[in-house]
Each structure stands twice: as C-alpha cells, then as structure tokens.
C-alpha cells in the first residue's frame, strides 16, 4: 500500500440552501488503497461527505483534492471523466429493474462511450466480455440475461458492485450498501467490496451503521456527528468505548417533538 495522500479534504464545509449544515470544517486525508469506513448517525453528514467526492453534492467552502488535483470546479466533460473513475454503490441498489442484468452492468461503462454508440448499444466485445467477468467476480455469472427485478436484494447489490467494477474505478463509494440486506448477504456484499480493494488496490469508502462490520472490514474508521469529524483512527487503535462515543446522541429529539405536537392538539400538558 502506498502511503501517499490520494484524497484530501481541506476544511470542507457544506451548507444546504435551506440553511442546514451538512458538513463543517472537515479535514481528512485518505491514502490510496485504503478501506475506509465512515460511521455516524443518520443525518450526521456521511452521505453528504461521500457525495462531495464525485460531486453529486457541491461543497460551500474548502477544497477537495484527488490525486493532487482540486476537483471542486470541474464541469462538463471533466466532471464526467472524474465520475467514471469513481464507482458508487447505494442502499437501494439503484438498478434499472426492468432491464437485464447485462444491461445494468454495461451501464457502468457508458461514460466511456459517445452518446450515439451507447444509444445504439454498440459496446465493444472486450466490454461485453468484461461484463461476464464482473458478474463472475460477484458469483452471478449465470444471471447475465435475467431481469434485475427477478434477483434478491443481495444479488441486486452484487450486480451494483459489478456495475461499479465496469467503470475501472480508482475509488469506490458505498453508501449504506448493506442497510437493507440480511446478515448472510451482508457478508457477501462486504466481501465483494473487500475483494475490489485487495485485488486492484481500489480505494473503498463505505458508510456503515454497524460497528461490528466496520471493525471487521475497515483499515481505518472515521466518525461523523452533526457534520463534524469527531473520530479518526486506524483499525489497530480502535476500541469499543471509542465507538460507543460516536453513537452517543445529544438527546431524544424526535420524541420531544412528538410531545409538543401532542400537547398542541390536546391543549393539555
């Protein structure tokens, strides 16, 4: 593993148009080939942080460098070239359910084709072969021509991993990839991600809720709370009490809100 700073967040802040603070003063460097797990409560900024890397979200302040280049002002072709080198896995798999598995996996490759060639389905033989290879890697070779909605949740997520693999990514982002899966398929999806990391040195960043999984797969764990980086340790330094602290919330907010609403309708406190 090369210990160069591959990804660099420099004092990154993000404020949403409605005033919500998504991220504040994030300073983080990620070396090439690291398997980084980001933990934190819902709404802590994990997804936002991840999406600033492929610019699905823009930041409000600071700078982000990938491979020594600032990416925050990329536009058009340059932005698309950045994105095609970054694979992304989603909680809801985000496959086109009515399309075949083959077409879903190939869609990871369209960034490398002109509009017309991809529209007419003129994918090269090499890329079609690569589709088969990508599916074999996740153990779904026989599903090539199956429609995506006929697969189980775990299988769909593994197709999504294959789609990301098609991009020849340098970075893979996985946003709660196992949140809607059962424990058994969870392991197979996490193993697929780990294999991308081991076999090709792809930098993998995963958002997770499960601390147990985080400890099992991560090289390093960072924690977010309220948009701020509150924790950052490599796996050999992580202790159980540390992780409990990350998940300590400031108070039962939703509950107090419910009480207010209740009293408003009843007129009695």
């Amino acid at each position, binding site marked *: 593993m090369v210990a160069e700073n591959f990804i660099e967040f420099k004092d990154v802040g993000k404020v949403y148009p409605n005033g919500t603070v998504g991220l504040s003063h994030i300073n983080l460097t990620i070396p090439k080939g690291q398997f980084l797990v980001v933990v934190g409560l819902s709404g802590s900024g994990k997804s936002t942080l991840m999406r600033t890397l492929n610019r699905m979200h823009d930041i409000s302040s600071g700078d982000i460098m990938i491979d020594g280049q600032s990416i925050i002002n990329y536009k058009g072709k340059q932005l698309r070239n950045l994105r*095609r080198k970054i694979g992304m896995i*989603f909680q809801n798999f985000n496959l086109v359910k009515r*399309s075949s598995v083959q077409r879903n996996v190939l869609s990871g490759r369209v960034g490398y084709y002109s509009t017309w060639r991809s529209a007419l389905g003129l994918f090269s033989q090499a890329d079609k072969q690569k589709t088969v290879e990508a599916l074999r890697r996740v153990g779904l070779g026989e599903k090539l021509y199956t429609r995506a909605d006929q697969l189980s949740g775990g299988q769909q997520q593994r197709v999504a991993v294959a789609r990301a693999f098609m991009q020849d990514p340098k970075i893979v982002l996985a946003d709660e990839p196992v949140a809607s899966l059962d424990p058994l398929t969870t392991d197979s999806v996490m193993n697929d991600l780990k294999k991308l990391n081991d076999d090709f040195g792809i930098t993998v960043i995963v958002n997770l809720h499960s601390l147990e999984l985080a400890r099992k797969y991560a090289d390093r764990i960072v924690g977010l709370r309220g948009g701020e980086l509150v924790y950052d340790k490599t796996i050999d330094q992580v202790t159980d009490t540390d992780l409990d602290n990350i998940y300590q919330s400031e108070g039962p907010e939703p509950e107090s809100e419910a009480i207010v609403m209740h009293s408003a309708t009843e007129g009695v406190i």
Partner: protein
Amino acid sequence: MNEVPKRSFVQRIHLKLIIWLGLFIGLVYWTASLTGVNLVMFFENFDQFTALLDKMARPDWSYTQLVINPILQTVQMALIGTTIGTLIAIPFSVLAARNIVKNPFIRTIIRFILNLVRTLPDLMLAALFVAIVGIGPIAGVFTLAVFSFGMISKLFYEAIETIDEGPLEALQATGANRSQVVIFAVIPQVFNYFISYFLYTFEINVRASTVLGYLGAGGIGVYLQRSLNEFAYDKTAIIILAILVVVLIIDTISNTMRERLL
C-alpha cells in the same frame, strides 16, 4: 388524556355535505335554464329518433364491399398519425418532466407549447390541414399526428415523473451524460407505459378519424358524410357497423397487449 373527542353540532348534521350538495344542485339547475335544456321537447320529438333507427335497421349489405377500403384507410391514417405524433412527443415529454429537467424556465416553455397544442380542437386542425395540403388522407394524417403529439406528450411526461429516481443518480454517478442517463435509466423504466399509451391513443385516433372525414380529411368519414347527406340510412348503418367491428378488434388487441405489458 386518551379520550375520543366529541363531534361538534356542525359535524354531526353533516352541514358541509348539505351545503355542497345544495350548491351542486343549484348549479345544475342554473346551467340548465341558461343553456335552454328542455327535457319535454326531447321526449316529444323522440319519434324522430325511432324513425331514423327504423331506417337504419335495414342495412344495405351490398354496400359492405365498398366500405372495406375506406375503413382500412382510416386505420392506416390513424397508425401513421399516431406514430409520427409519438416520435415527436418523446423528446418533448423528456424535456417537460420535472425530475429530468430541473430548470423551471425550459420546462414551463415546453409545457406551454404542449398546452397550446392540446387546446387546438382536432376538427379545427383538420380544417387547417385540408386548407394546407388539400382534401385527402394526408390532411387526416397530419391532424392525427398533431393531436396525438399533444395527448401523448402529456401522458408520457406524467409517466416519466413517476419513475424511480435511484437509477438516474446511479447513471449520473458513473459519468454518463444527460442523454445517456435518459437512454439507460429513464426509457427502460417507462417503455411499457409508452407502448400502452401509444395503443390507447391509436384507439382514440381510429374513432376520431371517422369524424375527420367530414372535413375532407380522408377515410371512412367521407363516406359517412355522403350517406347522411343522401339520407341513405341503410348505407349509414353499414358504415357504423364497420366502424364498430374495427374499433372492437383494435380494442381487443390493444387491451390484450397492454395487460401483458403492465
């Protein structure tokens, strides 16, 4: 604390419902008196209607041979018109969909054009195209194309607005450009709706094109008008039966196909 609240007097006698009902009845009465709807006259002159039915009850079966070609022409007109309208509607519907085009300015302009096209009555379009390209089926094809375009683009963009947006985000994240996102993530999700709406519009167009013939826009309508002008109700009956058969066939085919698709 946990008591069921009592309904107020107004709620108990359903006052709102009574008011709305009263308003509705008042409105119907008012519009009826304003437009001069006279039910007495309708029933007094009902024998006119039965007299017509009586004449049509003896169809001139020898006329059937003559009707076949024009009714096929009607179906052909509807097919070509619907196809042209659909092809033009696809790009417009994509541009009018809220989840694809985030720019409200472009969307508003596109939707305004679509509303404008839908406002034009098909009979007026037919008159217009007859004036432009002359009497004949070509005018009918153009009319149906514009009519289908207006209708289909609305059905299409509403279908597009219901799709799962996850795949759009996924495709965008792979570095696909906007057209590629539409081709790979939008079209596959709505394709079956598109086919279904195409068939539905085709059905409507077959019916509509019978009327268009009145204005000289080709098809069976020309014969319908001629027979009515000549008071040849035995021929009218054949034409109406022929239209019925064709509409039933198309209905059955398109219903079966749509059920399989959705």
